[in-house]
C-alpha cells in the first residue's frame, strides 16, 4: 500500500512538472497584465522545436534551447499583437494556439515524414533521470528509503528546474525591483508610466520570461518525459496550467500546490485504469481521465473563494487623452 502511494506520488511529480512550468510562465505574463491563453501553443511549439533539434543534434541541451527559442518567439508575437499594437489578448493567444497546432504537424510531416511525429531520439538527445547519491543503497530502508530513492531521486533535471522555479519566482516577484514593477504594471500601468518606467518594455520582458518557462515545459514533454514529439502532445496541458493559475490566485507557492493536485489526479487516473474498486466494480477509464477537467470546472465555478486577477489583466495600455 505504501509502495503504491509512493509510486503514485512519484508519477504525480512527473505529471505536474510541465503544468507547473507552464503555470509559472503564465504567472509572469498575467501578473504583468498580459493574459496568456497561448500557453498551450507555446508549449506545443517548444515541444516540437526541442524534439526536432534534439533528434538532429543528438544533444538534449540544444533541444532545450531550441524549444525555448520557439516559445519565446511565439511569446514575442503575442507581445507584438497585444502590447505594441494593443490587440485583444485572447484573440492573439487563440491564434498562437492554432498556429502552433498546425505548424508543428505540418513541419513535422514535411521534415521527418512520420505523420507529424519526430523520430525517436538518439542517445544524448534526451534528458536522463538524475540518480541522487546513495539512492540504490538506501532503497531498502523502510519509509525513508523509497521516499528518497523514488520520490526525490531519479527524476530528470527539468523536474528539479520546475520545482526550483517556484521559490525563484516568488523571490523575483516580491524581492526584486523587476518584480515590484511587474506586479505594478499588472495592477495599474498608468502608475508605472507616470513613475517614468516604460510599460511596453516591462510587459515585453514579462512575455519573454513567460516564453522561457513555456520552453522548459514544452521541452520536458518531448525530450525529457517523452522520447520525441508527437502531434498535439500537450493535449490541453496549457489550459490546465491556466486553470491552475487562477486556482492559485496568481501566487507561486499556490501554483505549485494546484499543479501537484492536478498531477495527482492524473496519476490516480492512470493507476486506476482497469482496477476494481471494492463495492463499485471497475470504474470506466474515461471517468478518471475526465476527473482533472471536472475538478477544474468545479473549482473555477467558485469553490476556491474569490480569485481576483491582476486588475489590468487583459487590458491593453493606452495613454488616455485627457
Amino acid at each position: 500500500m505504501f509502495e503504491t502511494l509512493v509510486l503514485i506520488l512519484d508519477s504525480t511529480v512527473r505529471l505536474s512538472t510541465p503544468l507547473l512550468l507552464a503555470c509559472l510562465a503564465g504567472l509572469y505574463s498575467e501578473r504583468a497584465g498580459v493574459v496568456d491563453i497561448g500557453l498551450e501553443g507555446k508549449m506545443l511549439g517548444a515541444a516540437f522545436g526541442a524534439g526536432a533539434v534534439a533528434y538532429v543534434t543528438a544533444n538534449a541541451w540544444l533541444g532545450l534551447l531550441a524549444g525555448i527559442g520557439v516559445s519565446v518567439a511565439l511569446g514575442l508575437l503575442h507581445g507584438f499583437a497585444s502590447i505594441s499594437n494593443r490587440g485583444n489578448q485572447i484573440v492573439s493567444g487563440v491564434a498562437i494556439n492554432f498556429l502552433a497546432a498546425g505548424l508543428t504537424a505540418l513541419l513535422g510531416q514535411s521534415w521527418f515524414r512520420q505523420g507529424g511525429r519526430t523520430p525517436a531520439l538518439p542517445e544524448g538527445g534526451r534528458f536522463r533521470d538524475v540518480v541522487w547519491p546513495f539512492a540504490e543503497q538506501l532503497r531498502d530502508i523502510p519509509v525513508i528509503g523509497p521516499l528518497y530513492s523514488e520520490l526525490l531521486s531519479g527524476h530528470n533535471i527539468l523536474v528539479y528546474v520546475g520545482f526550483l522555479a517556484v521559490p525563484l519566482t516568488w523571490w523575483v516577484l516580491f524581492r526584486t525591483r523587476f518584480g515590484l514593477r511587474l506586479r505594478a504594471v499588472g495592477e495599474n500601468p498608468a502608475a508605472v508610466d507616470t513613475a517614468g518606467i516604460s510599460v511596453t518594455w516591462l510587459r515585453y520582458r514579462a512575455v519573454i520570461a513567460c516564453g522561457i518557462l513555456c520552453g522548459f515545459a514544452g521541452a520536458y514533454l518531448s525530450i525529457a518525459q517523452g522520447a520525441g514529439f508527437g502531434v498535439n502532445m500537450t493535449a490541453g496541458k496549457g489550459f490546465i496550467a491556466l486553470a491552475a493559475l487562477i486556482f492559485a490566485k496568481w501566487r507561486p507557492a499556490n501554483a505549485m500546490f494546484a499543479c501537484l493536485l492536478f498531477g495527482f489526479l492524473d496519476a490516480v487516473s492512470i493507476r486506476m485504469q482497469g482496477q476494481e474498486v471494492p463495492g463499485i466494480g471497475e470504474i470506466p477509464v474515461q471517468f478518471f481521465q475526465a476527473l482533472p477537467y471536472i475538478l477544474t470546472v468545479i473549482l473555477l465555478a467558485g469553490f476556491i473563494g474569490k480569485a481576483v486577477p491582476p486588475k489590468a489583466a487583459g487590458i491593453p495600455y493606452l495613454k488616455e487623452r485627457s
Partner: protein
Amino acid sequence: MSETPAIELRGISKSFGPVHANRNIDLVVKKGSIHGIVGENGAGKSTLMSILYGFYHADAGDILVNGKTVTIADSKAAIGMGIGMVHQHFMLVDNFTVLENVVLGAEDSAMLAGGLDRARVELKRLEEEYELRVDPDALVQDLPVGLQQRVEILKALYRSAEVLILDEPTGVLTPPEADHLFKILEVLKNEGKTILLITHKLREIMAATDSVSVMRRGEMVATRETKDTSMEELAELMVGRSVLLRVDKKPASPGAPVMEVENLCVTDQRGVQVVKDVSFSVRAGEIVGIAGVSGNGQSELLETLSGIRRATAGTLKINGETIDLGTSALDAADMRARSMGHVPEDRHRMGLINSFAEYENSILGYHHDPAYSSGLLMNTAAIKQNAVAEIEKYDIRPPNPMLKTANFSGGNQQKIVLAREIERDPDVLLVGQPTRGVDIGAIEFIHSRLVELRDAGKGILLVSVELDEIRALADRILVMFDGRIVGERGADADEGELGLLMAGVEDNTKLPVEGDAR
C-alpha cells in the same frame, strides 16, 4: 525682483487630430509660489500639465526649467528635473503598501530591500518636515482618499520634486480634507517648493493661490495676481462672458408632498447597511438637496428610489400609492411608470449607452412607450423627431441625432439625459450629480432647467457632492453622513455648518487631522 522663474512655457501648442488642445500657450511660474490654473473642462489645462510632465509631447514651443530650455522626453525626464505631479485619478497601485508605492520607479537597486529601508527613513523625515503622516505599511486600498492623495504628494517629494503639479486635487475631498490639503501646500510653499494648482473651482483659487492663469478653449487668456482679481472676473474670463454664479430663482412655493420616504434601510452587496432608517418627503414645487461626501449612502438611496436597488425595509408614498420597498419587486421601469424620472449619478454607466446614437439614447428607459415602439419594431421616425425636438430645446451640440453619444462633450451628454427625463414630464425627478464633469455654460443651463421644472410644480430630489450646487439650487438641504440624515437646513444654511455636518461632526469641536475616521 528678476528672479529666474521655476517654470516658463513659451508658445506651447498641441493638437489631437483636428482638436487644438493647446494653442500658443505662454506661462511663467515664479519660484516658491502657488500658481493656479483655472478653466472649464476641456479648456486644455490637463493637457498642458501632461506636456510639462512629459506625458505628451508638444507640437511646438519651448519649456524652460530654472531658466534653461529643456526637452522633456518622458515622465522620467520630468522627474529628473524636479517636476512632480499629483494626478486627478491617483496613480497608485491599490494592493501595494504605501512604501511600495513610494519607491515604485525609484528603487535604488535591483534588490528591493535597500530601497525600501531608505524610503522608510525618508518618509519619516518628510513626515516631520511637512506634517504628512501616513502609515508606510498600510495598503493603499485601505486608505481614505485624502490619505491616498497624501501618498501621491509623498511620492513626488521622495523624488525630490521642486515643482509640484496638482491636477484637480479637491475633487474627491471633503471640505475639511481640502482645507487640510491647502495647509500642506502652504507649508510646502514656505519650504521653497513651487506649486501649480489646476482646478475649475474658483473658490480654491481665491483661497490658496498667489497668482492665477485662466485658460479657455486651449488658449491662455489671462494671468492675474490673485489679490488683484475676483471670482466674478475669473468666471467671466473662463467662459468668455459673464455668468451667474448664483442661480436666479424665486422662493419656492411648495404644495402637497409628492413623494414620502419612511424608515428606508438598504444593505449593499457586501452586507453592509448603507442607508439607515432614512425618512423625508419631497413636496410639489420644491427642490430637496441631499448633501454629503460621496460614499455616505446617497448613491444607494437614489438607486433604491429609482428601482435599481432593493431595500431591506421602508415605505415609499408616491402619488398617493404606498409601496413597501422591503418587499416590493418594482424595477426601474415600474418606477418610471409611476411618473418618477431619474437622472443617474454616473451618466456613462447608467444614463447613456455611449456607443449608441444620440436619438437611441434619447428614449432609453422609455423605449416601450407606444409612441416609440409597436412592441416588435421601433418607430424610428418618431424617435428621431423627438430627438431633434429635444436637441433644439436643450441646445445640445452638435445638433446631430445620429452621432454616437460618446462623441458629445460631458455637458451635452448630460443635457441628453436631462432632456430625456424632463420631457417625459415626471411628477418627481431624482437627480444625481447633474453637473459632474460639465462645463460652466452647461451647468448654468442645467440649473435653470431644474428650477423651471420646480416652478412647474414638480418635486425634485437632488443629490450632489458639490456643496455649492446644493446651496444654489435646493430649497431644503438634508445632510447625509454614514447612511443617516444627520441634519436638515434651509437654503440659506451656513456653509461651514454644512461642512461639519457632512464630516459627521455635529458640534463645533475641532476635526482630527487624520482623515481616517473609517
